[in-house]
């Protein structure tokens, strides 16, 4: 073949060469040798390179290699050295010589000197084509009327169709449908005006993908300025556009984050951006919860809720799903075809996803700047799919944005929470909280401070604190202290709690407690002051001190001490006065044993019983006991205690103990006086009753004497009347007994005796009294009527004392009717049960009665309406009734006379066991004391 071709090649009027399929030159024409001045042996193989301009050689070799690979006709350009050393620009056209299908047997090259033709200027059409193919861009040649004339090889490679197909671009799908209208308008205008065309538009690639191109069209004019052709150069800017778009998206998202949009909104926007940028995909973001163990919802605007819900809450591990796995491993997880996927079977993730129409899932971990996994970013497709490199870039970009958004949102949330907490603390604080800068100017002034000082926050912020709240007299000192601190760091205030005087807006001064702390921040120091108005505290402290002093004094004066006794711990605390009462030194710890050592031996068992009872069960108690002092004197103590629970829930008694010795002694003296009075009164009554008593006793005595005389006479008769004598003797005995009964009753009524409690049936007691008085009443022709309540309950009391009262009242009533002779002398004794749980006895007469102005005097000790009485009666009666917790009163009747009544509460009836909680009077207490 060489032999065949050589003469032909040499005959061609150009610099021609051939090369083997591997690119090694095997033949050069004679003209080639003549041009270079080199012989053929020097130019074959790789020797031709020495004729190439060193600057152009690398590009040329690169180009040559790619042409060899492409295996198609092509062209190259380079400067080649002439034999005189001058370089000329050449176009080197190469074409494969094909033998059979796809079999290249040789390359034929033609070097065309374009130097002397002025480069492009005089290039032929085909040359232009050749050149245009070398331009790394798509080149369209258009007619002056805008019709497509031709394109370079890149265009055909890109669109994958023929030139003929391209000519119908105005209606075809070459230009993206969205861009086509504007492209046509712009092109038509350029044709019409001759202005350059400059548009960014999407062009369809052979695989159907549209990519962005920057299309520039320039008209070529002839010498007369007529447009002869349009050259259109289209450069692929898709990567740039995407980068720009991503940058824009990222900017938008970051702006959202900066503007305080919620993390959820930002993530939703991010998902939408991904979905628009990468068509046909669904996007979601899941978050890892703060514990790092579970997935939380982030955003998934286009995925069904059922799908999202089945992912949320899944554990972060390799088994529960791609996102969980990606988050767990901190690695991207690609599931290109869920049909073929075997992972996550334990959680049946794939069937679940496929049930939602998803076929592919690419999940990428989202990591914080600290490298911690905060979530996962997933892209789903409804067809099996593997990410392209571009998509991977996209994913990386968006994961990064998501991590910024999440991190920002988390720190924002944390900051907001911290701010909100701080604000809430400031607002709700009871203390005044004031922040000031290093110059002492107010930065913050909380509501408590507003209330306390009377300045609205807006008015004081920025002012110097010292001028506002420190009294004028102290300002200089404050400034000096502040300056000293700033200069030397020496402080008397910071970190301490001091009390000082502050001043309000209205100029009034008040005490405050103040603590200042330095805020631990960079820069010049600032301070937080905590102030509390302690006016109230001062006042209550003073009040407390005062009341403490009062209490001590009061305890001293009233001889009343207080104590507490914690049963569980046995701890007993005495007030000063209790020590004084017990006559113990205050240094001695109080114990029950210590108390026992002072208690009167006769009262020890009572005290032990009491302690045993109240230790077992919380129960208020009150009792009296005696102390036997070292000097053998006796003190009477009255003790009242209230059961309570201390802070630890233990039973504790708080009580008071009063030295009632003096009262007891005077009460006893008073009672003696009262008893004596009662006795005197009785004796006075006795005098008045003498006649009655005499009659009462003389009656049977008379019978005795008469009967005895009769008896003697009957026995002295002849024959003696024995039967008669026996009868008279019998009557003598009977009358003797009768006299004896009278004496017994009199003794009971008039003997000097102590109080004795028993159940008293008032009806019976009254009947006995009336029986005693019956003769007297009969003599005075008093009609006595007894109106007794048959169901009258008994009361507790001293039977004899009560009978003395009744006797007194009946005799008074009888006396009051002494001068009456114009009407019946009716005397009514009535017993009844009162509504207020007491029994009442009323003695009603129809005598002279009382003048209304005497009503309040009738109980005076020596008041009397009677000429012969001592008048002691009603006064003593009243004191007896009061000892029974009852009352005695008098009131005038509607017509004649007066009614005198007493009532005694039934309450005492339940007190027969001397319940110590009952507040007893002197008489009953006496009773209790004796039973100790």
């Amino acid at each position, binding site marked *: 073949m060489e032999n065949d071709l050589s003469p032909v090649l040499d005959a061609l009027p150009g610099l021609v060469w051939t090369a083997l399929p591997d690119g090694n030159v095997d033949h050069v024409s004679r003209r080639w040798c003549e041009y270079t001045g080199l012989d053929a042996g020097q130019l074959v193989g790789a020797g031709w390179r020495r004729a190439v301009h060193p600057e152009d050689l690398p590009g040329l070799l690169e180009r040559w290699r790619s042409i060899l690979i492409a295996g198609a006709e092509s062209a190259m350009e380079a400067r080649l050295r002439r034999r005189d050393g001058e370089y000329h620009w050449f176009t080197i056209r190469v074409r494969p010589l094909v033998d059979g299908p796809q079999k290249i047997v040789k390359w034929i090259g033609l070097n065309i000197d374009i130097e002397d033709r002025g480069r492009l200027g005089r290039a032929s059409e085909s040359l232009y084509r050749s050149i245009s193919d070398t331009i790394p861009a798509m080149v369209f040649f258009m007619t002056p009327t805008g019709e497509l004339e031709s394109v370079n090889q890149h265009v055909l490679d890109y669109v994958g169709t023929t030139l003929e197909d391209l000519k119908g671009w105005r209606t075809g799908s070459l230009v993206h449908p969205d861009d086509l209208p504007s492209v046509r308008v712009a092109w038509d205008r350029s044709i019409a005006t001759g202005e350059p065309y400059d548009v960014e538009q999407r062009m369809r690639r052979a695989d159907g993908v549209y990519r962005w191109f920057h299309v520039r069209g320039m008209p070529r004019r002839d010498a007369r300025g007529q447009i002869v052709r349009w050259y259109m150069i289209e450069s692929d800017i898709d990567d740039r556009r995407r980068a720009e778009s991503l940058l824009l998206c990222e900017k938008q998202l970051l702006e959202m984050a900066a503007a305080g949009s919620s993390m959820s909104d930002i993530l939703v926007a991010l998902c939408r951006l991904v979905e628009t940028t990468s068509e046909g995909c669904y996007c979601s973001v899941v978050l890892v919860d703060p514990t790092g163990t579970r997935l939380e919802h982030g955003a998934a605007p286009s995925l069904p809720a059922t799908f999202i819900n089945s992912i949320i809450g899944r554990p972060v591990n390799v088994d529960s799903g791609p996102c969980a796995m990606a988050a767990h491993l901190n690695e991207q997880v690609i599931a290109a075809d869920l049909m073929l996927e075997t992972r996550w079977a334990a959680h049946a993730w794939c069937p679940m996803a496929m049930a939602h129409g998803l076929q592919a899932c690419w999940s990428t971990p989202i990591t914080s700047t600290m490298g911690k996994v905060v979530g996962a970013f997933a892209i789903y497709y409804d067809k099996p799919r593997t990410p392209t490199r571009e998509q991977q870039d996209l994913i990386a970009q968006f994961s990064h944005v998501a991590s910024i958004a999440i991190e920002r949102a988390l720190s924002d949330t944390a900051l907001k929470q911290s701010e909100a907490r701080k604000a809430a603390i400031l607002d709700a604080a009871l203390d005044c909280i004031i922040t000031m800068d290093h110059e002492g100017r107010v930065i913050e002034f909380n509501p408590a401070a507003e209330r306390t000082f009377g300045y609205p926050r807006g008015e004081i912020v920025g002012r110097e604190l010292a001028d506002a709240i420190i009294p004028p007299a102290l300002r200089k000192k404050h400034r000096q202290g502040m300056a000293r601190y700033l200069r030397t760091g020496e402080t008397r205030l910071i970190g301490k709690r001091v009390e000082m005087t502050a001043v309000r807006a209205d100029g009034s001064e008040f005490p405050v407690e103040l603590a200042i702390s330095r805020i631990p921040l960079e820069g010049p120091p600032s301070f937080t002051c905590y102030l509390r108005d302690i006016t109230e505290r001062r006042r209550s402290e003073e009040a407390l001190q005062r009341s403490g002093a009062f209490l001590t004094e009061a305890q001293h004066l009233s001889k009343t001490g207080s104590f507490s006794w914690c049963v569980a711990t046995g701890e007993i605390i005495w007030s000063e006065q209790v020590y004084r009462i017990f006559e113990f030194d205050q240094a001695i710890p109080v114990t029950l044993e210590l108390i026992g050592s002072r208690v009167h031996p006769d009262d020890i068992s009572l005290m032990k019983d009491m302690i045993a009872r109240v230790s077992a069960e919380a129960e208020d108690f009150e009792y009296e006991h005696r102390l036997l002092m070292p000097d053998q004197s006796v003190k009477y103590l009255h003790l009242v205690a209230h059961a309570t629970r201390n802070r630890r829930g233990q039973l504790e008694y708080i009580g008071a103990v009063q030295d009632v010795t003096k009262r007891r002694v005077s009460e006893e003296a008073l009672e003696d006086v009262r008893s004596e009075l009662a006795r005197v009164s009785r004796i006075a009554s006795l005098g008045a009753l003498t*006649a*009655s008593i*005499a*009659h*009462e006793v*003389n*009656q*049977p*005595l*008379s*019978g*005795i*004497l*008469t*009967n005895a*005389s*009769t008896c003697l*006479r*009957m026995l002295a*008769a002849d024959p003696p009347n024995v039967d*008669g004598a026996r*009868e*008279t003797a019998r*009557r003598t005995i*009977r*009358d003797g007994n*009768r006299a004896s009964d009278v004496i017994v009753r009199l003794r009971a009524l008039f003997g000097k005796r102590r109080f004795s409690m028993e159940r008293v049936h008032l009806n019976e007691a009254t009947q006995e009294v009336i029986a005693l008085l019956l*003769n007297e009443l*009969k*003599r005075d*022709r008093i009609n006595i009527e007894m109106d007794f309540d048959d169901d009258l309950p008994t009361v507790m009391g001293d039977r004899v004392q009560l009978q003395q009262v009744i006797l007194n009242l009946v005799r008074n009533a009888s006396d009051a009717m002494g001068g009456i002779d114009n009407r019946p002398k009716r005397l009514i004794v009535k017993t009844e049960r009162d509504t207020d749980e007491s029994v009442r006895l009323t003695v009603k007469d129809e005598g002279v009665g009382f003048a209304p102005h005497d009503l309040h005097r009738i109980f005076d000790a020596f008041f009397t309406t009677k000429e012969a009485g001592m008048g002691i009666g009603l006064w003593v009666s009243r004191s007896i009734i009061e000892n029974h917790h009852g009352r005695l009163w008098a009131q005038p009747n509607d017509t004649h006379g007066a009614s005198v009544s007493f009532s005694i509460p039934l309450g005492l009836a339940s007190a027969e066991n001397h319940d110590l909680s009952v507040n007893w009077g002197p008489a009953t207490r006496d009773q209790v004391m004796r039973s100790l």
Partner: protein
Amino acid sequence: MTSRLLVSIVDDDESVRESLPDLLREFGFAAEAFSSAEEFLASDHIDLTSCLILDMAMPGMSGPDLQRELRLRRQDVPIVFITGHGDETVRPRAMAEGAVECLLKPFSDASLRDAIDLALRVGRMPRSTIECGKVR
């Protein structure tokens, strides 16, 4: 026994009414006891009574009341008062009212006998006679 003189007793005390008639019968009198003045006045024994032994204090009509009533009826029955409410003032007052005697309970059988004897001696006589008899 019809020759026996009747001595009537008015006393609300039962033991007196029981014991006194027996003693009077031992003295040899007929005796009749009444529990109240009203009962005596209602009886037909007033005219037959040679001597009235009368209690002073009684419910309803008292001894002196009965004395006044009898005087109003011109029944000058000699009266011997007996009383358990004895004091120094009772006797002179009763005597001034025309009683033969006033005995304070308890009294002896001898003093009773003396009083009745005196009453019987005085009999139903004008007060002046009684006065004379007394003087004697």
